[in-house]
């Protein structure tokens, strides 16, 4: 039986190898799966040649070179294949932004400067067209982030499979804050930008002063219901992550000081495009960083052409915990290539892989659940023909929460329909004889 299945699976693989073709199955399946004979990049425990992974109930039950395959498991022979933990994109608008030019199709921005109680998870559209497009590329998890004012809302980490936001939640959230800066917007003078920064710094500090007071009196009879402060009090109390978007070198230093003054503990810096300028100070602060996009132009006209490519590596080598993001939505699928660029420009392949797996999970506080291939963790992983950072590599299978995901997306369906269109030219008159 087992052998028969293996043969069957091998046959099924043939078309996939050619074109990352459509799987016949359009529905996800969960079962007890045994993934065998693969080279397994556990990320946290090295590489296992000819290893096996057993998935049961959505969890990795066993990993290793000498794992016995349960008799009731559906076996996949991945000989010559590589298995990696699902990639985590630490900054996207997946599910919140369907078509960015159309206001009705954007849900990542609420009215107001201080709206930390706005929940990204609420607005995630599980059926967003970009979600299957992303996950068939091996990205299984994403931080989806609201943006806009000083405190635009609460970001959520989602697994890219599920039919309700709750099914998708990966169990981590964080309040988002944009650290005030004086970068000029379009049609803004430097004076205006300087004033905007001052105004925003004032609003930010007054808001957090209030939040700290609110955290103290919360629950007492006199405390009024103040949803904005409810959300911030969780940060003050150390129950909730605070993602601070900060990019300029001077701003990063100010933000470090601000965090230290406030004494907030669960803080992550995001963006951090000029982190390389202040890498040592960042390392010393112990604050983790989500940076990206790596494929990005330098922040200053006077900077080296590859400043953005080199940024993650410089921070990582200084001792900063670095996770990567695409800061994209529809092209979150390019996460491995951002990592590849970081790898080539000083970070090295191993660290770059960590930056989109275990480091991302660690930064979000869910490193006990995802980010590596370890027993007891969620079965978020993918099977590839080789190095996922290379574009010639084909992603063969993706598992999210233990589900075998159908390897299809609208982009693949269109490919299938139009590669050899029927009818071709012949149904109608040709255009030149009109």
């Amino acid at each position, binding site marked *: 039986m087992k052998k028969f299945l293996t043969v069957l699976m091998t046959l099924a693989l043939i078309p996939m190898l*050619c*074109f*990352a073709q459509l799987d016949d199955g359009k529905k996800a399946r969960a079962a007890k799966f045994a993934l065998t004979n693969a080279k397994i990049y556990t990320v946290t425990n090295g590489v296992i040649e000819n290893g096996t992974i057993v998935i049961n109930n959505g969890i990795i039950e066993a990993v290793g070179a000498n794992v016995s395959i349960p008799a009731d498991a559906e076996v996949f022979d991945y000989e010559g294949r590589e298995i990696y933990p699902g990639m985590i994109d630490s900054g996207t608008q997946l599910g919140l932004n*369907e*078509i*960015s*030019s*159309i*206001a009705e199709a954007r849900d990542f921005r609420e009215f107001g400067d201080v709206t930390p109680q706005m929940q990204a998870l609420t607005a995630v559209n599980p059926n967003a067209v*970009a979600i299957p497009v992303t996950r068939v590329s091996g990205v299984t998890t994403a931080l989806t982030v609201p943006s806009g004012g000083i405190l635009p809302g609460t970001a959520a980490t989602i697994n890219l499979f599920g039919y309700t936001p709750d099914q998708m939640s990966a169990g981590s959230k964080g309040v988002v804050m944009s650290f005030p800066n004086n*970068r000029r917007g*379009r*049609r803004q003078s430097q004076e205006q930008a300087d004033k905007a920064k001052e105004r925003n710094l004032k609003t930010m500090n007054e808001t957090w002063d209030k939040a700290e007071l609110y955290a103290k009196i919360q629950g007492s009879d006199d405390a009024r219901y103040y949803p904005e402060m409810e959300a911030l009090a969780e940060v003050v109390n150390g129950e909730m992550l605070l993602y601070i978007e900060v*990019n*300029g070198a001077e701003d990063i230093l100010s933000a470090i000081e601000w965090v230290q003054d406030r004494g907030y503990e669960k803080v992550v810096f995001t*963006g951090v*495009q*000029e982190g390389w300028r202040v890498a040592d100070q960042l390392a010393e602060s112990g604050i983790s960083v989500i940076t990206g*996009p790596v*494929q*990005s*132009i*330098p*922040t*200053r*006209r*006077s*900077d*080296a*052409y*590859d400043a*953005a490519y080199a940024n993650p590596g410089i921070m990582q080598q200084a001792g900063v915990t670095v996770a990567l993001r695409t*800061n*994209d*939505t*529809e*092209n979150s699928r390019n996460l*491995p*290539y951002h990592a590849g*660029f970081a*790898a*080539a*420009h000083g970070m090295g392949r191993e660290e770059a892989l960590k930056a989109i797996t275990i480091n991302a999970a660690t930064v979000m506080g869910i490193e006990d659940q995802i980010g590596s291939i370890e027993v007891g963790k969620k079965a978020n992983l993918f099977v590839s023909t080789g190095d996922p950072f*290379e*574009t*010639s*590599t084909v992603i063969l299978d993706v598992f999210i929460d233990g589900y075998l995901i159908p390897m299809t997306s609208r*982009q*693949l369906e*269109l*490919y299938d329909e*139009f*590669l050899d*269109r029927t009818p*071709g*030219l012949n149904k109608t008159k*040709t*255009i*030149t004889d*009109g």
Partner: protein
Amino acid sequence: MKGLTMKKINLTIILCFFVATFVQAQVEKGDVLIKNATVITITNGTLENTDVLIRDGKISKIDQNIKTPRGVEEVDATGKFVMPGIIDAHSHIAGSSINEGTSQVTSEVSMEDVVNPLDVAIYRALAGGVTSIHLMHGSANVIGGQNETLKLRYGSTNPDDLRFEGAPRTIKFALGENPTRGGRARGIQPQSRMGVEAMLRNSFSEAVIYKEKWDAYRADRSNRKVAPEYSLRMETLVDILEGEILVHCHSYRADEIYMLMKVFADFGIEKLTFQHANEAYKVAPELAEFGASASVFSDWWAYKLEVYYSTAYNAAILTKNGVNTSINSDSGELIRHLFHEAAKTQKYGNLSDDEALALITLNPAKQLGIDDRVGSIETGKDGDIAIFDVHPLSTYAIPLMTFIDGVKYFDKETDVKDQRIYIDPESPIAEVHIFDAEDQHRCMEGADIVHFSDLFNDSEE
């Protein structure tokens, strides 16, 4: 020289207009011998342990163990990969203005007037192995301005030094959301794809009448004849009708792509490349039959409605249907890694190495009418070369050197950070701009991120 825009007008008029001698910019030509490389020729396979000799700006020999001629600099490329300089068929770097969007037909304007050689983005593109770009007018109007093909000879302050001497003239057209959005914003036509077609047909019909008037004037033997009104706008449209200008049309949807082919068939215009063309894959057989080309993104989609039904397999479907296809950047960011964008066609459609690399070399060269000069490593072609540390289709590839006409314009070894040519003494030392992908794909393109005044303001002043 492309600057002379009036080929057909009779000699007296040419003399009358061009009394001044045109001063052809003297561009530097170099000599170099690249030794012992893996040479990806594009047209003649990949040659191991091969030398490429460039003399006076041209590839003079491709062989093993070429003896170094006296006085020629040698570059040891052992273990390195050499490919033709990358060509970006859609770029907006190095332009002081992009859109003259104040009128729906502006065929008289030309990007050759607004080349900005001081743009640091040029150097950053060189550092991505790019040697030539197609500096395009924006897409705000149905018939936009003429484009300019450039070689990225960074370092000169003279715009003329960057011109791709001898490249054919090209012009930008635009269909779909962008020109109709302009129409809606101003309460004029076109506000629909119907109106776009009508505007195209009207414009060319007018041009036919204009040409008839001028033909009659020229045929008139009388020495007391009176010239019809001269219009540079109409002159340009006539040049398009006569096949002297290649049309590059901003387009997304299959229906509008098909529409333009029908219009062009009716007016007998043949040289046509669709830019972006996210839905070109849907009419790939029609494109192939017409002989039209497509210059597409590797994977951009979903930023507006007309690119919602895109697929990253576009380039592969087009290539396999026999359509000459290129991959472009339309971005000061993407242009720095077009080799990587081309590599994505191996993920999306399994193209061969040569097919993938042709998308950013020979194919765009054909679309710009410069394939007799660049786009492959062949004897007699220009010495426009990029050298990579590993195979350029690898994500880990880093361009090491970039040559144009045999002159080295980028060398990673000796790269200097601050590449600004002019510095405003009143500028602050630390002026930080944070990259926003939104601004990249959309700045000239689309949607409501664009401020109305972008349609006519200069960017530099």
